[in-house]
């Protein structure tokens, strides 16, 4: 939710927040001010939807908050830690441990099975041994309804199934924050509803914060908070149907 709307929320319930984020893209004459002083707090157990016209800075905000891109100004706080001074390797480590991404396209690796795809973030974290990773990946795939397709090559899954594997992969290291960039944008209505339902259930049950970029009004309406963006600024924050 926007900063002014969440002054009373305790920091323990805010796994990720940004303050006064500035971001420019391009060089010289083609330089564009894509984020103009954006501030946002993500609350645990809540689904935050960002809506707005194409090019308004939704995805840019998502990438900056997901530590994939560095802002030109402002501050990002992960839990209680400011990330400005961290090195690229340290930022990668935080991303691996605390943030899960779901993209419009599943981006699964076709050389791996569904289970192996889910294990890839776990291998980087290195906390579990191979057997524990396999068990956790199987459990996550079971949770997204793919328990019977654990060993299936990711190429041989349907679009909806692949996106559910991507969701399981985003949960691999039990992150506090999920960032989803139009996760239902490439799915038919039935799969779209199923994936969104899955995400909201996870947020509720596991007290995760979900930031969702969407063009789909039904998806936005079904969120806890709807943040409307225009020209690189958050111009409105309203409660959704879930709230």
């Amino acid at each position, binding site marked *: 939710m926007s900063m002014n709307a969440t002054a009373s929320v305790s920091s323990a319930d805010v796994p990720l927040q940004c303050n006064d984020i500035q971001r420019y893209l391009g060089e010289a004459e083609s330089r564009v001010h894509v984020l103009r002083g954006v501030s946002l707090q993500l609350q645990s157990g809540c689904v935050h939807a960002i809506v707005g016209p194409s090019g308004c800075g939704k995805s840019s905000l998502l990438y900056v908050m997901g530590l994939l891109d560095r802002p030109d100004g402002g501050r990002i706080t992960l839990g209680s830690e400011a990330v400005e001074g961290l090195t690229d390797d340290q930022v*990668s*480590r935080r991303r*691996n441990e605390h943030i899960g991404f779901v*993209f*419009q*396209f599943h981006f699964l690796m076709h050389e791996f099975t569904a289970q192996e795809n889910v294990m890839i973030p776990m291998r*980087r974290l290195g906390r579990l041994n191979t057997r524990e990773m396999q068990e956790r990946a199987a459990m996550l795939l079971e949770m997204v309804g793919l328990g019977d397709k654990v060993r299936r090559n990711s190429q041989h899954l349907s679009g909806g199934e692949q996106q559910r594997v991507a969701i399981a992969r985003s949960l*691999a290291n039990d992150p506090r924050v999920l960032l989803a960039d139009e996760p239902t944008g490439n799915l038919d209505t039935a799969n779209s509803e199923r994936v969104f339902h899955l995400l909201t259930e996870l947020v509720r049950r596991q007290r995760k914060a979900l930031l969702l970029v969407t063009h789909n009004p039904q998806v936005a309406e079904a969120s806890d908070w709807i943040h409307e963006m225009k020209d690189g600024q958050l111009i409105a924050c309203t409660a959704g149907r879930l709230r």
Partner: protein
Amino acid sequence: MPPPLYIAMRFIGYRKKAILLSLTGVILGVAFYICAQAQTQGFERFFIKGALGTSGAIVIGNRFQTLHTDILDRGAPGMLSIGHEKPRKFYEGINDPERIMRVVNEFSNVATCAPVLEGSAALATDFRQEVFRVQGIDLTLHLKASTLREQIVNGSIEDFQVKPFGLILGYELADKMRTRVGHDVGLIGLDGEHRTFRVCAVFQTGNLFIDEKYGYVHLKAAQSLLQRPYGVSHLMVKLRDPSRAPALATHLEQLLQHRARSWQDRERGSLQIFNLIRISAAITVSTIILLAGFGIFNILTLMVMDKVREIAVLRSMGYRRADISAIFLWQGFLVALIGSLLGCVLGAALTYGVSQIPVDIKGFLSTKRFLVHWSGTDYLTATAIAFVAIFLASYFPSRRAARLAPVDILRGSGQ
């Protein structure tokens, strides 16, 4: 297993045909390198062994006297020259070989040394008469300093040992003179006197010049034949480490005031030819490995271009730039490892196969089969070349992959 290696092992199957082609290039390059080096070194070692076995690591010969001008030498009026060394004055042979041998044997690197009196004599058989080089030897010392025993192809050393007028002839010389072991032949020395010698053995060094021109008699017999009752022509010195011969030869020359030549100096021309052939073969064959490396470079560069989404997603999952780079470096490493291992096995098989090829070479070297030298260094060098070439081939694509900005890729993915 490191996560980048795990991913690399799966990615390597991408573009299977191209990677197999490059892998084949590495295997063949490594194998050909090993086989080519084994051949050139085989002939070189054979030549060196012959040189060491026939004349020793160092030959100490003529005594010399260094002449100096006065420190200050007045020439024309008003001219003053500073003293300097003039050309040496040489005296043929060694007059006191016992004393020189005692000094030489004091050096720790010297295994043994043997006196040789060498000169020309005429060899007369029923068939013909021909001038040859006769070497008078102290058999006991000569057997220790040379490989004469191994060179005997007919007759026996023991027979020669007990016959004061025994003769050992080179294989080609005996053949040319139509004589063989057990025959009596005549040797005519400087005094023109005809002396009868019994052919006790025939030797073959593999060097046609020696086998066609040389023969051995006992030292005493040679002294009589060549009219030199005292002294010898030279001493042949066997070293424990022949590679250190040049330094010791220089030292001995200064110490003893006798000409001392190492085998590297004596055979410099031939060794340079061998060296050039070896380098030429190495460069030619390494080209195959470099071409294979270029193939790997192309494959990995294409892979980086095709896998940009996967790279972006891996970065979003927390993989560091170094991890992304390592995925591509590991692929290069795996190709180099498999290529080198299989290349070494194929190289050994090829070397063995080549060593079994019958040939009939006579001249500079004489051999009836292809000569090869089994050297672990060649295997290590071939492997090192493969690893360096493939590391360079993988380094640039890997660096490019690591530098990719995930956000730019994700933005360009139609989102």
